[in-house]
């Protein structure tokens, strides 16, 4: 089986699967259990400056977006950074690193945006023997109101400045963890790079209000009658995280800046997708909090089998393999023409494609009766190949798109050449 050994900015781990900084990495007990289960590394739950630790609410911290079968689609939390004394955490980090030298231990940090605060904590972390630090510029609630977390991450100049302090006062590799609560994540990533970051990790949680309890007419989780926005994570955020990872991976200004991907990774497929789109390793939080550490088995096994099936000897061949497929809309080939098609043998006659197209799209599907049975057919004259019917068809492989080649598109009456023509070259584009 393919070798999963990972080397992320000089930090080695037996596999590229780390646990993200969060409750699963809050203390030695959890981390040891994770290592026993087979996790390659952890980013220790974020440490704050020395002194009385922060205080968490004692009411509910989480709320959940469920599927109908109560599967966890999204998780929201209002937890802060570690609420245990700094010294306790540092001692435990040192001990675990000694006992598990082959695993990666990165320490997440969040202290006030003052040089002295960073200068004070960095040597203590280095003394533990940890492999690196991750700067938590992402936490969207509780800490940002105190001038930390997302409130730093949202200002590129601060990101650059703090990163530079860390590089100055510590020899440890620096990973900058980015907040998704911005309009364009590339600005934060570029700032981290300018500050000298060894890598970026993304994403932290997304500002969210999960739901309104319709009995109490109060937002959830409700703490003594009131709630506040939290941070959203879990499977639902994966598409958002993927977009951000891809944006940084293909940004010319960020070339050479490794990415540790986080956000909704639940299994080997998610992890593999993230690596293909440019991440060098991945971090997991919600999936572990949903099922426990044992999910690592599927991740390790699935990824190595995948690499084998693609004849990729190591992770290097995978990382970034899908990046060239990402482009801007204006460069998509406008002469690539597809039409929907229905495999009548697989069709179960639910009529969903028909009603979706009829009510909400292009009226390109007909509903008739053939031999007393419902029958649905694509009308190529109207079909724009939008993929809605294929997307909502409940039967796998029943509907698909067929590419037109050297034939007339009956919708436009034009011959399909397939010859590459993008918007920048298109006659309708006033700028072309």
């Amino acid at each position, binding site marked *: 089986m393919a070798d999963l050994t990972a080397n992320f900015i000089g930090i080695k781990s037996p596999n590229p699967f780390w646990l993200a900084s969060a409750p699963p990495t809050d203390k030695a007990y959890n981390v040891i259990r994770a290592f026993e289960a087979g996790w390659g590394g952890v980013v220790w739950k974020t440490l704050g400056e020395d002194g009385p630790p922060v205080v968490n609410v004692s009411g509910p911290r989480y709320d959940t977006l469920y599927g109908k079968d109560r599967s966890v689609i999204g998780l929201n939390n209002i937890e802060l950074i570690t609420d245990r004394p700094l010294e306790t955490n540092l001692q435990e980090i040192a001990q675990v690193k000694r006992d598990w030298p082959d695993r990666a231990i990165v320490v997440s940090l969040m202290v006030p945006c003052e040089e002295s605060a960073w200068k004070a904590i960095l040597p203590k972390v280095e003394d533990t023997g940890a492999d690196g630090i991750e700067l938590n510029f992402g936490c969207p609630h509780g800490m940002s109101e105190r001038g930390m977390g997302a409130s730093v991450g949202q200002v590129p100049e601060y990101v650059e400045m703090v990163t530079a302090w860390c590089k100055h006062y510590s020899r440890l590799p620096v990973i900058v963890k980015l907040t998704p609560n911005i309009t364009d994540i590339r600005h934060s990533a570029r700032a981290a790079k300018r500050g000298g970051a060894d890598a970026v990790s993304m994403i932290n949680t997304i500002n969210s209000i999960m739901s309104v309890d319709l009995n109490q007419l109060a937002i959830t989780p409700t703490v003594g009658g009131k709630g506040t926005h939290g941070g959203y994570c879990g499977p639902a955020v994966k598409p958002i995280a993927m977009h951000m990872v891809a944006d940084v991976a293909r940004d010319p200004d960020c070339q050479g800046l490794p990415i540790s991907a986080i956000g909704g990774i639940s299994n080997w497929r998610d992890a593999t997708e993230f690596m293909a789109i440019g991440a060098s390793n991945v971090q997991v939080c919600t999936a572990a909090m949903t099922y426990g550490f044992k999910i690592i088995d599927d991740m390790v096994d699935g990824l190595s089998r995948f690499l084998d099936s693609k004849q990729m000897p190591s992770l290097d061949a995978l990382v970034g393999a899908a990046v060239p497929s990402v482009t801007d809309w204006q460069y998509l080939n406008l002469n690539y023409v597809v039409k929907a098609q229905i495999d009548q043998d697989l069709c179960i*006659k639910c009529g*969903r494609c028909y009603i979706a197209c009829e009510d909400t799209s292009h009226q390109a599907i007909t*509903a008739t009766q053939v031999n007393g049975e419902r029958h649905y057919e694509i009308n190529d004259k109207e079909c724009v190949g939008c993929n809605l019917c294929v997307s909502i068809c409940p039967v796998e492989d029943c509907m698909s798109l067929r590419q037109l080649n050297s034939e007339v598109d009956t919708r436009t009456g034009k011959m399909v050449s397939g010859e590459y023509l993008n918007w920048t070259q298109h006659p309708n584009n006033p700028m072309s």
Partner: protein
Amino acid sequence: MKQVTTPNLLGATDNTPNEGISSVGGHAQFTEMHPPLDARSALVESDRCYFCFDAPCIEACPTGIDVPNFIRMISNHNPAGAAAVILQENIMGGTCARACPVETLCEQSCVRNKEGDKPIQIGLLQRYATDTAMAAGETFFTREPDSGYSIGIIGGGPAGLSCAHRLAMLGHQVVIYESRQKTGGLNEYGLAAYKMLDNFAQREVEYIMAIGNIDIRHGMQLGDNISLSEIQSAHDAVFLALGLGACNMIGLTGENSQGVQDAVDYIRQLRQAEDLSQLPVGSQVVVIGGGMTAIDIASQTRLLGAREVTIAYRRGAENMKASVKEQEFAQTHDVRIMHWAQPVKLLVEQQKVVGVEFKSTDPTANQENFVLQADMVFKAIGQLLEPIDANRNIQFELEAGRLRVDVERRTSQFGIWAGGDCISDGDDLTVSAVQDGKLAAQSIHKFLNGTRD
């Protein structure tokens, strides 16, 4: 006759399958055939529905319930809305959820079957919605202002009640003439006990009657203490919903001997028994017939402790009116089903039946006659329409021995509608009787408003 009473219903003996029986208040009772879904299972099951366009299940339902819509409401935590959708088309949605042969109706048409998957459990979801709404005391219907018209209905079964309810909604006054002491027809006296637990038939009747303006007169038997012309002159329109009263005869000598019984009569006793252990049950039971009644009586007597129960049907499995699922239900309750067996002789000793002689009707086999020993023989070979007007002053057109009606359920007699088991073309199901009642009510309403086409 050797009567095996069943004092030890609740204790397992070799011959007493007792998983279908439980003790309630010290009385032996049947237990649920298909346990209801709890809220969570209902959510999960409802989420499987594809919400088809122009869904085939709607078409497959004789009452045309908008199945995808009610299922979607369940999945969105709105069981009351779901119940309203169901009851709007089928006021007996509760009974139908329990008694419909869904495997040949809505669930058979489910597109999930085409995927080789299990159909959505529409029946159980319908039950979840209607039970939840009824338990919460939710009602959905109001009466329109009084029309001043009055309609006489004969028979308080599914057809009669459905018609009455719809007419009341439309603002009319209704009188139901019912020969028995309880309302509900075969819901109360006929459906298998394990489908209708906890006095459901009566609870549903109350729920339906709560609309008001429905006056039910028990003990009024058409052709006995009241005549059709009396009813006609007292009302502006008449709906006949008297089901099938008489029982078909096998046509063999000895049909009146002890131990030979009409299945429907016996089920009626069974349904009314307070304590099932007091009911006489044979030791070797032979049921003649191949429909739902045959399945029901066989399964119920077996559950009640009969040692051997055999259904003898004169044709093959595929010809049986009982669905494959129902046949399987009986078989898993240790009932033997014998096909191609036609009774030719009842064996009687001292006026008591002791067995039945059969000849084989199997066209592929050449078998000799054989005898099944029996101390109880049930006739479950269908029922007949009783004469409606004994004096024959009012003559109805019949078809296959039942009343002929048009699509609006009008009989050949002006001002008289009919529906349920007493009409021809019916499929002898509760759900169809409900639909007949609904259609007749709509037609009567149109007629009374003078917009008759």
